[in-house]
C-alpha cells in the first residue's frame, strides 16, 4: 500500500469519526447550539478548548518558527500560553457567571448600550474572520501535501466537513468533535517527537531531551555526552547562523509576548468555550485543564524545533562541518519526497556534486566558503513547516505515523475553524438578529437563524480562503492586536470597575480599535493595500513594529474609558448590581435559563 492511500485511510477514518459524533450530538435548542446546553465536563471542555485554540499554525508552523530563530521566538510559547492565566483570573469565571451566550451580549448588557454591543460585534467579526481565512487555507495546504489533491479542492472538502457537524450540532457538536480532534492531533504530534528525542538523547520526554546530552553513534561529527543545545549552538555558529540560545532585543521580545498574551485572552472564540461548563468553579478548573492539554504540545514544540534543525544540519553535513558535505546522490529518501512539494530545494551551485548548507551572508559563512570553495548556500529552499511535516520520515518511523500527521494537521485546522465560525454565527444570529433586528423571533426561529448564519459564515470563509486577500499574513497580527486593544480591556473593566459607563466603554473600544488600525495601516499600507504605506520600518515609533502594538492600543482603551467615564454620569444602580452579581459565583445556575 503506498503512502497516499495510507494517508487517505487515516484522514477518511478521522472524518468518519467526526460525522458520527455530529449525528450523536445534534443540537435541539439554542442553548445547545450556543453553549452545548452548559453540560460539558470541565476536563472535556479543557480538551476542546485546546483543540479550538491550537490551529494549523500551532501544529505545523510553530516548531519551525522557533527552530529558525531559537531563543528569540520563545515569545510564541510564552505569549500563546500566558494568555490563559489572564483569561482564567480576569475573564472566564465572571463571564460564565453572567450566563449568556456571546461576548458582545455581555458588553451590551454591562454597558447598557446597543451601540457598545454593535461595536463589540464588529470587533468580533473582524478578529474571527481574519483568523478563519488562515485556517481554511491551512486545511487546503494540509490536503494538498498529504493527499495529492489540489489545494482548492482540499479547502472545499474541509469546508463541507465542518459544515456538516457545525451546522448540525452547533457548540455541542463542535465541542465533542474538538475532543476527538485533540486526541488525533496530540498523538500525531508527540509520537514522532518522542522517537526523535530517544534517538538523539535517549530521553523519551522531548521537553527534557532538549536539555539532555547527545547519544553515541550519531552522524555529523556530533560528540556523545555534549548537551544538545551546546551541539546545536556550535554547529550553527560554524555555519554562520545566529547562535540558537542568544538574545537579540529583550524589550521588544517582552512587548510582543505581552501583545500575544492579552490578545489570546481577548479572543472571543476561546472565551465562549467557557460558557459551556455547568458552574463557575468548573470554568476556573477548565482553564487549567485547557492549559494542560495545550502544554502537552507547547512543551514539545521547542524540542521538535531544535532536534529537527539539528537533524537537518547533520543530514547535510554527515561528516561534520569540517568534513565533506552530503553528496547529491546520497540525499535521503525523505529529502527527495519533500523536494517534490517545493518545501525543500537544492542547487549544486559550485558543481562539486555535494550540497553545502550554510549562511553565505555571514563572516563565518564567508570563511567556510573560502576554505571549501563554495559559491553560495546550496539548500536554496528550506521551508520551516518541513520540520514538523517531515519529522516522522527523518526519524524513520513507519508510514502510518505519516498518515497520523496528515489527519492531525487537518484536525488542528478544522477544530479552530469550527470554533471561529461558531463565534461569528452566534454573534450574527444572537447579537444582531435576535437582539437588534427581530427581537420577537421564536426559539425555533433563532435556532434556524443560527444554522443559516453558520452556513453563510462557512461560505464566506471558503470564498476568502480560495481568494485570500493579499494581506493574509498581516491580518493575523491585526486579529491579535485588535483582540488585545478592543475586547480584552472592555471586558476586564466591565468586571473589575463599577465606574466605567457606556460612553467610556464605547470611547475606549473605539480608541483601542482606531489607534491599533492606524498604527498597522501607517506602516503596512491602508487596508494592507501594497504601496500605500506612509512610513517604513526605520520610522517605527520608539522602534515598535506594528505586530507589537496590542498592549499600547489596550493602554489607550483603558485610559480613554477611564477619563471619559469620570467626566460623565455614574453607572446606573441596576448595572452596579449586575457587576456585583457577576463577581460572586452564587446563583450561576439560575442564570442558565435566561
Amino acid at each position, binding site marked *: 500500500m503506498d503512502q497516499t492511500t495510507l494517508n487517505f485511510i487515516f484522514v477518511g477514518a478521522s472524518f468518519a469519526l467526526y460525522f458520527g459524533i455530529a449525528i450523536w450530538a445534534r443540537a435541539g435548542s439554542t442553548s445547545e447550539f450556543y453553549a452545548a446546553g452548559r453540560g460539558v465536563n470541565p476536563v472535556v471542555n479543557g480538551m476542546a478548548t485546546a483543540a479550538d485554540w491550537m490551529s494549523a499554525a500551532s501544529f505545523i508552523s510553530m516548531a519551525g518558527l522557533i527552530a529558525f530563530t531559537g531563543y528569540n521566538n520563545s515569545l510564541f510559547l510564552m505569549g500563546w500560553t500566558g494568555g490563559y492565566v489572564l483569561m482564567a483570573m480576569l475573564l472566564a469565571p465572571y463571564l460564565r457567571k453572567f450566563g449568556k451566550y456571546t461576548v458582545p451580549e455581555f458588553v451590551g448588557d454591562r454597558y447598557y448600550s446597543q451601540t457598545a454591543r454593535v461595536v463589540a460585534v464588529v470587533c468580533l467579526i473582524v478578529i474571527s474572520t481574519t483568523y478563519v481565512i488562515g485556517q481554511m487555507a491551512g486545511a487546503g495546504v494540509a490536503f494538498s501535501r498529504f493527499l495529492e489533491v489540489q489545494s482548492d479542492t482540499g479547502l472545499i472538502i474541509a469546508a463541507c466537513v465542518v459544515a456538516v457537524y457545525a451546522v448540525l450540532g452547533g457548540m455541542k457538536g463542535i465541542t465533542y468533535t474538538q475532543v476527538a480532534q485533540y486526541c488525533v492531533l496530540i498523538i500525531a504530534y508527540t509520537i514522532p517527537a518522542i522517537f526523535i528525542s530517544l534517538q538523539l538523547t535517549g530521553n523519551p520526554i522531548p521537553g527534557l531531551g532538549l536539555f539532555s546530552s547527545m547519544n553515541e553513534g550519531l552522524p555529523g561529527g556530533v560528540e556523545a555526552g555534549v548537551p544538545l543545545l551546546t551541539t546545536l549552538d556550535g554547529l550553527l555558529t560554524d555555519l554562520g547562523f545566529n547562535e540558537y540560545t542568544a538574545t537579540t532585543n529583550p524589550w521588544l521580545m517582552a512587548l510582543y509576548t505581552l501583545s500575544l498574551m492579552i490578545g489570546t485572552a481577548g479572543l472571543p472564540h476561546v472565551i465562549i468555550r467557557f460558557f459551556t461548563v455547568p458552574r463557575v468553579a468548573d470554568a*476556573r478548573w477548565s482553564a487549567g485543564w485547557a492549559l494542560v492539554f495545550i502544554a502537552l504540545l507547547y512543551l514539545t514544540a521547542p524540542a521538535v524545533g531544535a532536534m529537527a534543525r539539528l537533524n537537518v544540519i547533520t543530514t547535510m553535513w554527515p561528516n561534520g562541518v569540517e568534513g565533506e558535505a552530503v553528496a547529491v546522490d546520497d540525499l535521503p529518501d525523505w529529502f527527495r519526497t519533500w523536494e517534490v512539494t517545493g518545501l525543500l530545494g537544492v542547487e549544486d551551485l559550485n558543481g562539486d556534486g555535494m550540497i553545502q548548507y550554510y549562511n553565505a551572508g555571514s563572516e563565518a559563512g564567508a570563511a567556510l566558503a573560502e576554505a571549501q570553495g563554495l559559491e553560495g548556500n546550496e539548500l536554496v529552499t528550506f521551508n520551516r513547516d518541513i520540520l514538523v511535516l517531515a519529522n516522522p520520515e527523518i526519524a524513520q518511523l513507519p508510514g502510518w505515523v505519516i498518515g497520523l500527521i496528515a489527519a492531525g494537521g487537518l484536525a488542528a485546522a478544522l477544530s479552530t475553524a469550527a470554533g471561529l465560525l461558531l463565534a461569528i454565527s452566534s454573534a450574527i444570529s444572537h447579537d444582531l438578529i435576535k437582539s437588534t433586528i427581530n427581537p420577537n423571533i421564536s426559539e425555533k426561529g433563532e435556532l434556524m437563524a443560527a444554522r443559516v448564519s453558520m452556513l453563510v459564515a462557512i461560505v464566506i470563509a471558503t470564498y476568502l480562503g480560495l481568494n485570500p486577500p493579499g494581506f493574509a499574513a498581516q491580518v493575523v497580527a491585526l486579529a491579535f492586536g485588535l483582540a488585545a486593544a478592543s475586547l480584552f480591556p472592555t471586558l476586564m473593566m466591565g468586571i473589575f470597575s463599577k465606574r466605567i459607563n457606556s460612553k467610556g466603554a464605547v470611547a475606549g473600544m473605539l480608541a483601542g480599535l482606531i489607534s491599533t488600525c492606524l498604527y498597522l495601516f501607517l506602516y503596512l499600507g491602508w487596508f494592507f493595500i501594497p504601496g500605500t504605506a506612509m512610513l517604513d520600518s526605520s520610522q517605527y515609533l520608539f522602534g515598535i513594529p506594528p505586530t507589537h502594538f496590542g498592549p499600547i492600543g489596550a493602554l489607550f482603551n483603558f485610559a480613554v474609558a477611564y477619563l471619559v467615564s469620570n467626566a460623565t454620569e455614574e453607572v446606573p444602580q441596576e448595572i452596579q448590581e449586575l457587576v456585583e452579581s457577576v463577581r460572586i*459565583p452564587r446563583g450561576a445556575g439560575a442564570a442558565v435559563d435566561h
Partner: protein
Amino acid sequence: MADSPSNNEYWSANIRLVTICLVIWALASFGFGILLRPLVSGIAVGGTDLGFWFAQQGSILVFLVLIFFYAWRMNSLDKQFGVDEE
C-alpha cells in the same frame, strides 16, 4: 446581595490573590524568561542557562501551577464567604 460587607471582603481577597498570581506570572515569563535572563545566566541548565529554560519550558509550567492554585484557592474562598454555588 449588593455591597454586603462579606461580599466586599470576598472581592478584596480575590483581588489580593489575583495580584499575587500575576506578579509570579510576570516574573516567570517577562522576568526570568526575558528581561532578567542576564541575572540568572550563571545558572547552567543542560547546555544553556536558566533564562532559556524559563522561556521554553519553565514559564508554561509556572502558568499551569498558577491557574490550578487560583482555581483551588478561589473555590475554597467561595465556600468560606458563603458565595459558592449551591
